[in-house]
């Protein structure tokens, strides 16, 4: 038995627990049976958004006026955790890229018109969103963004390209960071909710140049997108011009926290599956769980797992209770959870021996899925830069 905090009343009310129960049942019955197929296809079906949406799973933490349930951030944690139980990392990533990474900022700073046009249908899963920041030459370094938006009357004209975009091949709206003032570095960034289907056959000038093949996260699509003189109405500007960096600082901490929570669940499932395997697999006449070094390794992993979960949950609470996001704690939680998850999955694969290298075992998928977590959403190296700036005054 691996001790767990997922039912702890200090974090989860009965309402949360009911949400979790329903979602878990849905994942087990409606997602698990299909993930092998989705992994092979390189994409889960877009209908999944609708199915999740109509059951209210997407809007847990969104205001009721936006079509959500008005709950707290722990509803998002539950979404991240329970989707993780389908053991296909791409599913959780794709859904969260839509419902949290892409949508959150629109809900926070979008005009009432955009709430109606985008947020409401998106929470029902009828529109698909994506967050769209990375470029071929600017990953963690947002100041280096080269895609531009130029004002032209009531329109903006957008040129450039974006890459590593989760949901990128099918998103209806791209929550996109661009430069409205190239000379200004951080202070020239603006955000748009870029509509990809403005014109019949797709917004003119917008192309999915490539669907990127990745080492893992196979059930999620990833796009390389190009923008060639795309004209979009001015209303799609989010908030004010050139305030994009501020919006990132303020609103994107939730994304990192969600990455931590997702990683924790991926670590936990790795541990659960591996401990089960160790009780079934015999070698040299003993069960694997009887070997001291493997037991001690499990103990080390459990200790780190619990530490990471405590850190993430406590940080969620802090995040909910403070007006400015606790950037230091969130960066630490993100870095620790993703590194821990990656290490745990690597060691768990090792315990599985040859079976761990076979595509069909869960642990092999979880291992390659987890490899992305220390790179995406603020790489470990970037987290260290952030943390060191905050602790070394």
């Amino acid at each position: 038995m691996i001790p767990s905090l997922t039912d702890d009343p200090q974090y989860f009310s009965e309402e949360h627990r009911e949400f979790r129960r329903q979602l878990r049942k849905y994942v087990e019955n409606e997602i698990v049976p299909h993930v092998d197929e989705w992994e092979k296809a390189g994409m889960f079906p877009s209908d999944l958004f609708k199915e999740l949406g109509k059951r209210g799973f997407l809007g847990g933490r969104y205001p009721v006026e936006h079509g959500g349930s008005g709950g707290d951030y722990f509803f998002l944690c539950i979404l991240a955790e329970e989707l993780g139980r389908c053991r296909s990392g791409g599913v959780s990533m794709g859904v969260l890229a839509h419902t949290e990474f892409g949508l959150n900022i629109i809900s926070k700073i979008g005009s009432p018109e955009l709430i109606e046009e985008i947020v409401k249908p998106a929470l029902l899963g009828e529109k698909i969103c994506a967050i769209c920041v990375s470029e071929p030459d600017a990953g963690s370094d947002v100041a280096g963004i080269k895609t531009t938006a130029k004002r032209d009357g009531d329109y903006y004209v957008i040129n450039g390209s974006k890459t590593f975009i989760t949901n990128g091949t099918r998103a209806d709206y791209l929550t996109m960071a661009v430069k409205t003032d190239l000379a200004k570095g951080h202070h020239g960034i603006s955000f748009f909710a870029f509509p990809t289907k403005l014109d019949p056959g797709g917004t003119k000038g917008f192309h999915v140049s490539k669907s990127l093949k990745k080492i893992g996260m196979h059930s999620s699509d990833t796009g390389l997108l190009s923008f060639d003189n795309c004209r979009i109405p001015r209303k799609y500007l989010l908030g004010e011009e050139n305030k994009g960096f501020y919006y990132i600082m303020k609103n994107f901490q939730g994304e990192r926290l969600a990455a931590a929570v997702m990683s924790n669940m991926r670590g936990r499932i790795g541990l659960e599956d591996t401990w089960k395997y160790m009780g079934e697999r015999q070698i040299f006449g003993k069960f694997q769980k009887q070997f001291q070094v493997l037991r001690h390794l499990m103990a080390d992993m459990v200790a780190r797992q619990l530490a990471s979960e405590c850190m993430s949950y406590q940080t969620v609470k802090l995040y909910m209770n403070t007006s400015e996001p606790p950037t230091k704690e969130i960066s630490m939680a993100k870095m620790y959870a993703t590194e821990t998850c990656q290490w745990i999955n690597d060691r768990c694969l090792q315990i599985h021996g040859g079976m761990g290298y076979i595509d069909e075992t869960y642990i092999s998928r979880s291992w390659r899925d987890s490899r992305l977590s220390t790179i995406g959403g603020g790489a470990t190296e970037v987290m260290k830069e952030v943390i060191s700036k905050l602790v070394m005054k």
Partner: protein
Amino acid sequence: MEDFYSAEEKLLREQATKFILEKVRPRVEEWEKTGEMPKSIFKEFAAQGFLGILVPEEYGGSNAGPKAFLAFSDAFELSTSAGVGAAIAMHAGIVTRLVAELASDPIKKKIIPPSVKGDIVGALGLTEPNAGSDLASLTTNVRREGDYYVLNGTKTFITNGCWCDYVLVLCRQEGTKGYEGMNLLLVERNSPGFSVSRRIETLGWRPSQTGELVFENVRVPAGNILGKEGKGFQQIMRALEWERLMMAHQSLRKAEIALDMTMKFVAEREQFGKPIAAFQNTRHVIAECATRIEVGRALVKEAVKRHLAHEESEAFAASAKLLCCEDAQWILDRCLQLHGGYGYTMEFPIQRLWRDHRLFTIGGGTSEVQREILARILDR
């Protein structure tokens, strides 16, 4: 972590911090050099009320509770000497508390008030030359003779051992084995047959008077038993868990103090034409250290909460002891490294923090033992 303590606990920490920095820290270098701290230090701590934090008011304590004790420990770690902290924490954090919880009324009346005043000092006798982390194999022997227990055996690595006025001895009734059949006896120093066979010189913890105690036909009055006959081990399990939590908590505090020192050092010291703090490597190492401290704190906080609420705390306490002590060891090593050659001199306290702390992954149940505990929880 700040939301962990109540306002009163923070006040206590402030008071203690002032006391430590003014009255203790300036004398530490001397004590460390000679290995001798005056025993009267207990009275000085007592005068501030620190020795009664875990003791009910009727016996002269403040009964401020375990979290208050942790807040107090945040302060005493600032002495930069684990030996000072260990001596105080063993006496006031563990031994006196066990007496208050388990002893008979006459014994409580006799022992606790002077303990709280710092007039007498207690020790805990668990480890034996051949039974360290493996208490099930301890052999110190006890048999009943009329109104007395007769005690024979040797206890070693005993903090406060050389100067203790009384020691709680975990011993085995004849014919028992494993974790069953142990008694916990309070033995006073003046008992005939009790002796301190030697002081054990250690790599760190120098002022803590680590000693080896010998019991040769020591006759202990029957009323000196703590708790029930044969349940000695079971009765201290909660105290051992508390010790693990204290050690995890203290480890992180040591790491934090070291990191503060280090950030100051790297900001001032220049190499290759710029402060060491300006090197990316330095910054990333510090980020990693700070993260491990913060994460460890989150774990300790949860573990302490569960321990105090008598909720399932075993896995959390073992995880906290394992992870925080190991991580602190790594952090202290990195801090020493960032001090360069200066870190290796006796002139900077980082060397002492580093070498003092090395015992934390060995004492109070080695890291290996914590892993065993965790693995057995998985078996359930």
